[in-house]
C-alpha cells in the first residue's frame, strides 16, 4: 500500500492578478460596516424620505384629490436635497476612520508591502464610502423613478422627463466623488477618526458660515462659491434644469468642485504612504 506524503503542500490554485487588491479592501470595508447595527439603523433612516415620497406618488396616481402631489423633475431634485443630511451623516460615520484608523494601527506599511499599489488602496477606500453614499442617493432616487412608473401604470412621466435618469446619475456621482474624496483626504491627515469627523463638519459648516456672513454684509449671493454645499446645490440645479439658486456663475461652482477633488487627490498622494517621511 503506497503511503502518501502528509506534509504541507504549496497552494497550487489560481491567484487574482495584480490590480484587484482594491476589491479586497472594498469588500472588507463594506462587510465591516454592514456588521454594525447602529449603521444599519442610519441606513434605514436614510430611506425614510424614500418611503414618504412613495406614498406621495401612490396618492397622486390613485387619488384624484391628491393630484396636487403629482411629481415633477423638481420633486427628484428636492428629494436629493433632503438626502444631503443623510449624505453628511453617512460620510462622517463611514469615512472618518477609513484611512485614519489604518494610520493609527500602522497598517499602511503592512498593506503596502503586499501586492497592492497606493492607488488601489485609495480606490478601495473610495469604493467603500461611495457604495454607501450611492445607497442613500442614487439608488433610492432611481428606485423612486421606477416606483413612479409602477404606480402611474404608464411611461408618460418618464417620456416627458427623459433627462431625469442621466440627471440623477450625473449629479449623485459628482456629489459622491466630491464628498468621498474630501473625506478621504481629511481622514489621511489624522490618526483620530473623531478629529476627522469634526474636521469634516468644520469644512461644511465653516465654509457655509463664511458665505452667510458675506451675504449678510453684501446682500448678494455672488460669494456662494465659498460654500461647499452651495456649490453642489448650484450644480444640482443646472443638471436638473431648475432656476439657479445663487448669483455665482455655475462654471465657477463647477470649478470649485473640481478644485476640491484635485486638492483631495494631491493630499492623498502625499499622505498615503507606507512610511511617513518627515524631512
Amino acid at each position, binding site marked *: 500500500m503506497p503511503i502518501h506524503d502528509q506534509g*504541507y503542500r*504549496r*497552494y497550487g*490554485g489560481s*491567484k*487574482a*492578478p*495584480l490590480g*484587484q*487588491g482594491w476589491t*479586497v479592501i472594498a469588500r*472588507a470595508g463594506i462587510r465591516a460596516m454592514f456588521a454594525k447595527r447602529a449603521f444599519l439603523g442610519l441606513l434605514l433612516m436614510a430611506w425614510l424620505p424614500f418611503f414618504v415620497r412613495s406614498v406621495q406618488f401612490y396618492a397622486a396616481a390613485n387619488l384624484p384629490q391628491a393630484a396636487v402631489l403629482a411629481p415633477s423633475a423638481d420633486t427628484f431634485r428636492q428629494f436629493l436635497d433632503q438626502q444631503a443630511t443623510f449624505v453628511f451623516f453617512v460620510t462622517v460615520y463611514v469615512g472618518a476612520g477609513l484611512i485614519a*484608523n489604518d494610520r493609527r*494601527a*500602522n*497598517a499602511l*506599511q*503592512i*498593506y*503596502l*508591502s*503586499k*501586492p*497592492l*499599489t497606493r492607488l488601489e488602496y485609495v480606490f478601495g477606500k473610495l469604493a467603500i464610502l461611495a457604495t454607501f453614499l450611492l445607497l442613500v442617493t442614487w439608488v433610492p432616487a432611481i428606485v423612486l423613478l421606477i416606483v413612479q412608473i409602477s404606480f402611474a401604470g404608464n411611461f408618460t412621466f418618464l417620456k416627458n422627463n427623459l433627462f431625469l435618469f442621466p440627471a440623477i446619475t450625473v449629479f449623485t456621482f459628482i456629489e459622491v466623488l466630491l464628498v468621498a474624496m474630501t473625506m478621504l483626504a481629511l481622514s489621511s491627515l489624522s490618526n483620530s477618526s473623531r478629529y476627522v469627523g469634526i474636521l469634516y463638519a468644520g469644512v461644511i459648516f465653516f465654509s457655509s458660515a463664511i458665505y452667510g456672513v458675506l451675504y449678510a454684509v453684501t446682500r448678494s449671493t455672488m460669494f456662494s462659491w465659498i460654500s461647499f454645499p452651495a456649490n453642489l446645490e448650484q450644480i444640482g440645479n443646472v443638471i436638473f434644469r431648475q432656476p439657479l439658486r445663487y448669483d455665482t456663475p455655475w462654471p465657477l461652482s463647477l470649478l470649485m468642485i473640481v478644485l476640491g477633488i484635485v486638492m483631495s487627490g494631491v493630499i492623498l498622494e502625499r499622505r498615503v*504612504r*507606507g*512610511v511617513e*517621511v*518627515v*524631512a
Partner: protein
Amino acid sequence: MSAVEQGAAAAVPDERRAVPRGSNIIAADHLSKWYGQVIGLNDVTLTVPPGITGLLGPNGAGKSTFMKLITGQLKPSKGTITVLGEPIWGNPSLYFRIGFCPEQDAFYERMTGLEWVTALVRLNGLSDTEAAATGRRALEMVELLDAADKKIGAYSKGMRQRVKMAQALAHEPELLILDEPLAGMDPIARRKTIRMIKDWGRAGRSIIVSSHILHEIESMTANILLINQGRILAEGNVHQIRDLIDEHPHTVYIKADQTRALARQFLSFDDVLSLKFEEDAIVVQTGRPDAFYARLTDLAASGELGAIHEVTSPDDNLQAVFQYLVKT
C-alpha cells in the same frame, strides 16, 4: 564587496532553493537615501546571497532605512536596488514573492489573529476560502493556532511578533524580511522564534533579519552585514567580530514577576558582572551573553522563579564594538 554564502542555506539542495545558487537576492549599487538634510543610508554597494543574512547595527545606524528600501517603501535618493533580480521601487508584483514583518505593531487589536492574517492573505490574490485555510496554516507554522481566535489585543508581545511573522510567510514568499523580530520577546518565545527562522532557512527560503543584538543574529546565521551611520561597515562571517564583542559587557533588561529571586539566582553566575533593579525589572551586565541567555531560557522554562515577561538588550555593547571597528 564579496558575497559570502554559508550558514543554514548552504545545507539546502539546489532543487529546494527558491533562489538559484550563485544568484543574489539583493543587489545595491551606490544606494543612498536622504531625509531632507539628514542622511539615512550613504553610498551603499553590496550583494546579499540566498540563505539567512543578519543585518546588524545600533539604533539609528540605518537598518530600518535599508529595510524600507529593500521592501520598496522608500524610493532611493541615489543609486539602484534590485530584489530577486528586479527593481523593487514601484514594482508591486514583486510583493507576491516577498514577505515583510515590520518592527512596529501594525494591527487592529479588536481583530482575532486569524481574521487579521486572513484579511492580509487576501491581498495576495487568494479567494476567501483559500485565504482562511492559508491563514490557519501560517498561524500553525508560528505555533499560534491555539490562539487563532483570540483578539490580538489580548496577545503577549511574543504572540504579536509571531502573528506579524505569520502574515509575512503565509503566501510562501521566496524572501522573508524580518525587522527586529525578537524585540521584547520572553526567552522561550525568543528560542522558538530563532528555531523557526532557522527552519525556514533550511527549507530553502532566503531571510534577511535585522537586530541590534549580535548573539541573536549569531544564533540564526553566520552571515552578517554590519551597518553603522548609514554605511556598511563590514560583511561576512560573524565569528570574526565575535571576539571583539566578548571584550565588552553585555547589558540585559529583564521584566519579571520575581525580580529579587531572579537577582539572587543571577548572583551565583560567575559571568554576571553587575545587577541593577528598576520598576518590575532587573538590569544585568554579563561577560558571556551566550551562557547567560541559555541559563535564562532554562530558568524561564522551569518557571521556578515566576514568569519572565520580557527580555531586551540595549545596544551599548554593540555601539562600543562599532566604535572600535571604526577606529581600526
